[in-house]
Structures are given as structure tokens and as C-alpha cells.
């Protein structure tokens, strides 16, 4: 007999760490993937111009010496000197230009090129200088984009200029200049990393020399393996039950950090009760319905019953921890302290002259946002129906169909979740509440639209934070969506593993380099 010895103890240097995850890689090529699993790898091995240092939500130059607006439409980045890739190639401004030109040129459907919406062109006047020309001026978001999935800098000698490069070619070409390089790559099964001594960015040296990442498909296996000590770290995504169970286990530590993942309920302004295209269209009544629902949702119940504290109540559009976040909905709805208030809801409906109970259909996705969506919505349905004000027709749908149907105005109210591209309040506002937004829920508020555009070009942090607060308050009054849950980042680590709390920060980037085994 033999138990699965996950780790090769006694290897040299800073030891070996084995990490398990259920996220999946799509591709190592930054132009070909736009998902958490692939981005997690990129964060270890590729350099970024801008990055978020441990413990901070805000970006700073990473492999760049400096980065600033040199004119309204020009963002100039100066690279540090003597940068090289792990394969020995020099990392120069030409690689940077190549990186962004390539993103835009390929514009792969699976890639993040859409994030570069504001990029006009890139120039590399000398080896160390890169000049980004932007379409709209003073874009405060652009530095953030440089730390997003669109931002990893790649080696022009390894990557193809106009086509995606395969994982195997990438691994063989070693175009890595992040904290780690990949030494062995078995797609979505096992990836072995080795610390990159040449990394010259702000994040510093890796604490552990060798890291192996094991990819799981079934969370219960991940849980059993970390519980049995077969792996040292389990990061994303264990179920709430598993985490609660592991909290009581002495062999492991459960480490929490702020999370950028949110859950919210979207209203379709056309098809919701009293919506614009319904028979008894009435914006005021529709608003009253949304408000009543906002009054009734019991966030604590969801947080405790369903998520066992791994998700926490969210009372605003921007999650807690990000610069500018407030608790706009807490004051405006419910009892004012975050608890539901049925009387308030009844009163609102009554004032709007709405006959109760109101019939409403709510839709959610079965598996996309974890296994707990059904329990989450069972509670919401309970909340709404217990008040006697609503009858809820709850349905779940498979993801792809759901994606088609929701923009086809088939769902009056539906669940969505969001994981940020970059850790900034803007990423929680502009995609949602600009007149042109991806929700396509027919919400339109010119005032909000303008405010969002304004904050994105406001350079002064305090002024920008104020604007962001104002936007949240305004949207909270309109209730285009009701945000209600914010996910914590959670890693389960062996009792002898240190450093997890350092990287579970508002950057929402899990960096293996911070971890070490005692």
C-alpha cells in the first residue's frame, strides 16, 4: 500500500509546495484566454507593467520604472533596465509594443482584447520607453488594464504576432519573467513552477523554490487531499460545507481574505413586473417592486445558511475593500441596518398602488456560480414569499442557454455573478451602468452615465472616490441590480504553511511566491 505522497519533501532550495485548485486553464497565451484559471498561471509567470503589491488594492509600476500620463492622451511607461526573460532574451519596449499590438490584432474570441477598448496605438521610441496612445483622454482605468488579463508582457521571439501560440511552444520557449517559470506542464493536470531568480518587479523574490499545482475537477477530492495532507494548499474552490468542516480540523488552517467576487440580482427594465414592455407598464410601480424586493432579501441568512460565512453580505455595487466602496443599499432599504423589513416593503407596494401578491419569475444558473446558487435562491424565494407580497416562479437554466436568454429579454429578474478584471471600483460600475452595458437590461440613467465617465478621467483619488460614492447612491436609488453577496477569498493550507494571508488581498491575485512551508 502507499498513500498519495503529494510532496517531494527534502528537495533543495526553499522547499517544495503543492497547491491544489479546481480552476481550469484555458490557454497560457494571454491573447487566448480570459478566465480565472488561466490568469492565475499568468500572474505567476508573466511580468506586468503595472501590478498590485501585496496588501494593497491599488496598482503600482511592476517591471516599470515609472508610468504616467505624459499628455492627456499619452500614457508613457519606462521599463527598468536589464530585464530579461527566463530564456535569456531581453525584455525591451519592443516586446511590450508587440504584446499589445498582438492582443488587438488577434482579438481572439476567448481573449481579453475587449479590455483594450481605449487603446489607440503603442509606440516604442527607445528600448526602455513605451508610449500608449489612448482614444479618450485622461483614462484613469488604463493603468489598471495593464494589470488585468490583457496586461501580461510576452516575448516577441517566442509568440507569434498574429496567431495564438500553443501552450507547449510557450513552455518550451520559456518566455517567463514573472516570479516563477514553468518547468513542467501537463495541461490542466499538473504544472510545476520554479522560482525565477531574474524577476525584477515590485513583488520580490519567491519564498518557495518549487511549486507544483495540481488541477482537480471535483472539489471533494481537493478537500480530501488537503485534509489528508496530500497537498499543502487548496485554493479555489471548496464548498462552504467543506470549509466549515476544515475550520475544525487541526491539520489545516483556513485563511480568509477580502474577495472581489460578487453576486447580484438583475432586473430587466422591460419585462419585469410593470416593466416598459409589459401590459401595465409603469416605471414607478416597477421601481416599487424592485425596492420591495431589496427590502426583503435577507443577506445574513444567505451568508450564514448557505455560505457559512464564506460569502458576506454586500450592500453596494462596489465591494468592500475597494477604494470608494460604500454601503448605499444598507441605508436605503430594509430596516436600515442591513436586515430585511417586510413592513417597509408592504408599505412601498401599497403606496405605489400595487396589488399583492406580485407574480415574479426569477432565474438562476445551476452550476456556473458554484453549487450553492439553488440554495441561495431558495432563500430569496422564501424571503419574498414569506412576506405575502410576492409569488415567485423560480427556475434554473444551463449556462449557455441562460446567456442567450437573458439578453433576449426572456428573464424578468435573474442572477449574475462578477469576478473583476482589475481591482478597481470602476470595474464594478462601467460594465454595468453605462447606457451601453453588458447587462442589456434596458437600464438607462444619463446622470449615472456621465458620472461614471467622469470618475474614469478624474486623476485626484479623493475626488474620484467621492464620485464613485455618488454613483453608488444613485444606482441604489434606481436599483438596476440588487447586489447582495460578496465572496471572501479563502485558501486552506497545511498547518505548517505560512504566507497565505499576505496574498489573499484586494488584488484578487493569488501569488504562490508569498507562500512558504515551515
Amino acid at each position: 500500500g502507499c498513500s498519495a505522497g503529494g510532496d517531494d519533501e527534502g528537495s533543495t532550495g526553499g522547499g517544495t509546495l503543492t497547491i491544489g485548485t479546481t480552476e481550469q486553464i484555458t490557454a497560457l497565451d494571454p491573447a487566448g484566454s480570459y478566465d480565472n484559471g488561466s490568469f492565475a498561471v499568468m500572474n505567476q509567470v508573466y511580468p506586468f507593467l503595472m501590478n498590485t503589491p501585496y496588501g494593497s488594492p491599488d496598482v503600482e509600476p511592476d517591471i516599470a520604472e515609472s508610468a504616467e500620463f505624459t499628455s492627456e492622451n499619452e500614457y508613457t511607461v519606462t521599463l527598468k533596465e536589464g530585464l530579461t526573460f527566463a530564456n535569456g532574451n531581453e525584455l525591451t519596449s519592443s516586446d511590450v509594443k508587440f504584446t499589445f499590438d498582438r492582443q488587438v490584432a488577434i482579438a481572439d474570441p476567448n481573449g481579453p482584447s475587449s479590455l483594450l477598448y481605449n487603446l489607440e496605438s503603442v509606440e516604442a521610441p527607445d528600448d526602455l520607453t513605451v508610449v500608449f496612445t489612448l482614444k479618450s483622454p485622461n483614462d484613469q482605468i488604463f493603468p489598471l488594464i495593464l494589470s488585468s488579463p490583457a496586461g501580461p508582457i510576452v516575448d516577441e521571439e517566442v509568440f507569434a504576432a498574429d496567431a495564438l501560440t500553443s501552450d507547449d511552444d510557450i513552455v518550451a520557449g520559456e518566455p517567463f519573467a514573472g516570479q516563477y517559470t514553468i518547468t513542467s506542464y501537463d495541461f490542466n493536470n499538473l504544472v510545476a513552477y520554479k522560482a525565477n531568480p531574474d524577476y525584477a518587479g515590485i513583488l520580490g523574490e519567491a519564498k518557495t523554490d518549487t511549486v507544483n499545482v495540481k488541477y482537480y475537477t471535483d472539489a471533494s477530492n481537493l478537500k480530501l487531499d488537503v485534509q489528508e495532507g496530500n497537498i499543502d494548499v487548496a485554493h479555489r474552490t471548496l464548498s462552504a460545507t467543506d470549509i466549515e468542516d476544515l475550520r475544525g480540523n487541526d491539520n489545516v488552517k483556513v485563511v480568509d481574505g477580502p474577495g472581489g467576487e460578487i453576486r447580484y440580482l438583475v432586473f430587466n427594465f422591460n419585462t419585469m413586473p410593470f416593466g416598459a414592455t409589459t401590459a401595465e407598464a409603469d416605471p414607478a410601480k416597477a421601481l416599487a417592486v424592485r425596492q420591495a424586493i431589496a427590502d426583503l432579501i435577507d443577506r445574513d441568512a444567505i451568508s450564514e445558511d448557505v455560505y457559512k460565512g464564506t460569502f458576506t453580505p454586500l450592500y453596494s455595487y462596489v465591494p468592500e475593500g475597494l477604494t470608494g466602496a460604500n454601503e448605499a443599499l444598507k441605508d436605503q432599504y430594509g430596516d436600515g441596518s442591513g436586515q430585511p423589513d417586510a413592513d417597509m416593503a408592504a408599505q412601498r407596494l401599497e403606496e405605489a398602488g400595487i396589488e399583492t401578491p406580485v407574480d415574479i419569475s426569477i432565474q438562476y444558473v445551476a452550476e456556473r456560480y458554484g453549487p450553492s446558487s439553488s440554495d441561495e435562491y431558495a432563500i430569496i424565494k422564501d424571503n419574498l414569499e414569506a412576506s405575502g407580497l410576492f409569488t415567485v416562479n423560480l427556475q434554473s437554466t444551463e449556462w449557455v442557454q441562460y446567456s442567450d436568454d437573458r439578453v433576449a429579454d426572456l428573464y424578468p429578474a435573474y442572477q449574475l455573478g462578477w469576478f473583476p478584471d482589475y481591482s478597481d471600483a470602476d470595474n464594478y460600475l462601467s460594465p454595468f451602468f453605462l447606457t451601453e452595458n453588458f447587462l442589456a437590461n434596458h437600464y438607462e440613467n444619463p446622470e449615472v452615465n456621465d458620472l461614471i465617465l467622469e470618475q474614469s478621467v478624474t486623476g485626484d483619488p479623493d475626488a474620484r472616490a467621492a464620485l464613485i460614492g455618488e454613483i453608488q447612491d444613485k444606482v441604489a436609488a434606481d436599483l438596476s441590480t440588487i447586489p447582495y453577496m460578496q465572496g471572501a477569498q479563502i485558501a486552506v493550507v497545511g498547518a505548517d504553511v505560512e504566507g497565505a494571508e499576505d496574498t489573499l488581498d484586494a488584488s484578487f491575485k493569488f501569488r504562490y511566491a508569498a507562500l512558504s512551508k515551515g
Partner: protein
Amino acid sequence: MAVAVSSRPGHRWRDRIPVVHQVRQSVGLQRGMLVAGLLMLLVFVLCAIFAPLLAPYGFAQRADASGGFGTQQPPSAAHPFGTTVGGYDVLSRVIWGTQTAILVIIVAVVLAIFIGVALGLYSGYFGGWLDRILVVVFDAIYAFPSLLLAIVLSIVISGGQSNLWGGVLAAAGSITVVFIPQYFRVIRAETVRIKAEAYVESAKVLGAPNRRIVFRHVFRNATRTLPLIITLNSSEAILTLAALGFLGFGIEPTAAAEWGYDLNKAQSDVTSGIWWTALFPGLAIVFTVLAITLVGESLNDLADPRLRGRRRVAQAAGEVAETSVVPGGTLDAGPGGLAGLEDGETFDEHGIEVKR
């Protein structure tokens, strides 16, 4: 020749009621297994019919007058089987789940039978090009991993919707597609065999039109093995639905109770020492499949005189048979068991075609 050996109709009737007849026929262990299966099945059906009375709570009920049930509560007086991760009463969901299971079985099996039997009859009796094509097509579907077919179909059929009927129809529909090739194979093989039987030929010789031959002579004889396949498929239907639930295509929990879904949700509970949420739906599935399979296998064994056990008789008991010119009739069973399901030459041109 003795005059009017009138048969007692009552006796005959009783002997012709399918299951009753077999129970009376069986002895010993065979009877034991049949009766055990029937009893379990009866419990299952009764649970489904009287679920509203039997279940202490609704399948989507999370709280009662005394407050919320709480999630993952261990078995207690109020919740004999505990509560689930979603805060439902396990016992109630297990009981309500019988309804879903029965629905799926009925819809899936009925649909599959209608289509499979019709095509099998046609293909087996008339042969020709359509037959060849159908055989190849169904063989292809057969080669398709059935669960995946079910997934694709559940998306196609219901667009991923998850209310009770949407879910049931999707699951049942996809199971149907998986099953049709089986019914088709069996019925076609039987039809091809029966077509060569003397009584079909004798009908042909009498000048009976094809329609009459197919319905009066072939159909009823060819479908004789169906009960066995039905029982086999019923259990497969439950398991497929459970597997679908496992992959996230199940029925929305507030729309209906479904064992496979609950079992799936209970997965991480098991590794955390919460045994009750998985055990009971799991047992429900096992018992139902066991019940149906026991009944099916027993009926099959009893239909086959060679497999049927009999009571031992006292020494030199009984009467010497009167006129026993040709022993036995032709009522022997057709292909049985899985062998019957899947046996049967596929590319055969059995028998001789009448010129048309």
C-alpha cells in the same frame, strides 16, 4: 372426443392477469424475490400517491411555524432524516422524490416504447432500405455514450429549463432517445423471428393484408418480452436522471424533489461527516432499482419454463396425463435478460420476403 370441456372463466382470467399469475406460479426463493420486489415496488408507488399525506413537510419547505429548519441538522424528532444543505427536510424530499421518479419512469418508458416499438415493428417486418438505415442509425446512437446524449438532449428539449415538467420531460426525453434503440433492437429481432413463424406465414397464405398481419399476429407476440425491458429501463431512467442531476441538469429543487439531485448536493456533506443527507436519497435510489429489477428478473425467470422453479412433489403423486400427444405449447419466452435486450443479429435478412 369428450364434449365441451368448458373452461372455468374465472380461473382463466386470474391466470391471465400478468403479475398475479406469476406470483401464483412461483415457489420458494423465486416467489420470495418476486414478492419482495413487488412489496418494495408497492411501497414506492404508495409513497408517490400519498406523498402529500406521508411527508411531514413540503419538498421545498425550509421553515414551519416554529421557525427555520436550519441547514444540515442531524436527524432529530422533528426531522427523522435530518435536513439538507439547503435546509430542506430529508425525509420529506425522499418521499416526494418518489413522485418525480415515477413520472420520469412513466414518461420515459412510454415514449420510448411507442417509438421504439413502432419503428422496430416496421423495420423488422418490412425490411428494405429503411430498415437498413434505421439499424445503422440506431447502432450509431447506441454507440454514443448515453449520458452525454442525455445531456445534449436535455439542453435541446427544455433549453435547460428546470421546472418539474420541463425537467421531467427533458430527462425523460433524453432517456427516451437512449432507450429507443434498445426497444427497436428487441422488437425488430422479435419481429424478424416471428415473421418466419408458421402462424405469420399461415396468415400470409390466407391472403391477409400486411396491416392485419402486423397488428394481429406480429405485434402482440413481439411485445411479449417488453415487461422485462421495461423494468430494466425504469431503473435506468432513475439512474440517468440521477446522473443528470449530478452533472447539473437536474430539476430545480423548489420545483420537485429529486433523489439524484439531492445526492449530488450532498457530496461534500459526506466527506464532512454529514452522512444523512446522502444516505437516504441514495438508499431510495437503490431500493427502487432493486425493487424494479427484482420484479423484472423474476417475471422473466417465471416466463421461461426452464428457469421456473417448482415445488417438490410427494413420491408418485399426481395423475398420469390423459392425452399428451405433443407436450407443451409454443408459449416459451423470447430472448430474456440483457441477452435478449442486445442479442439479435443486426444485419440479417431472415426468412423469405413475400414479393410485393
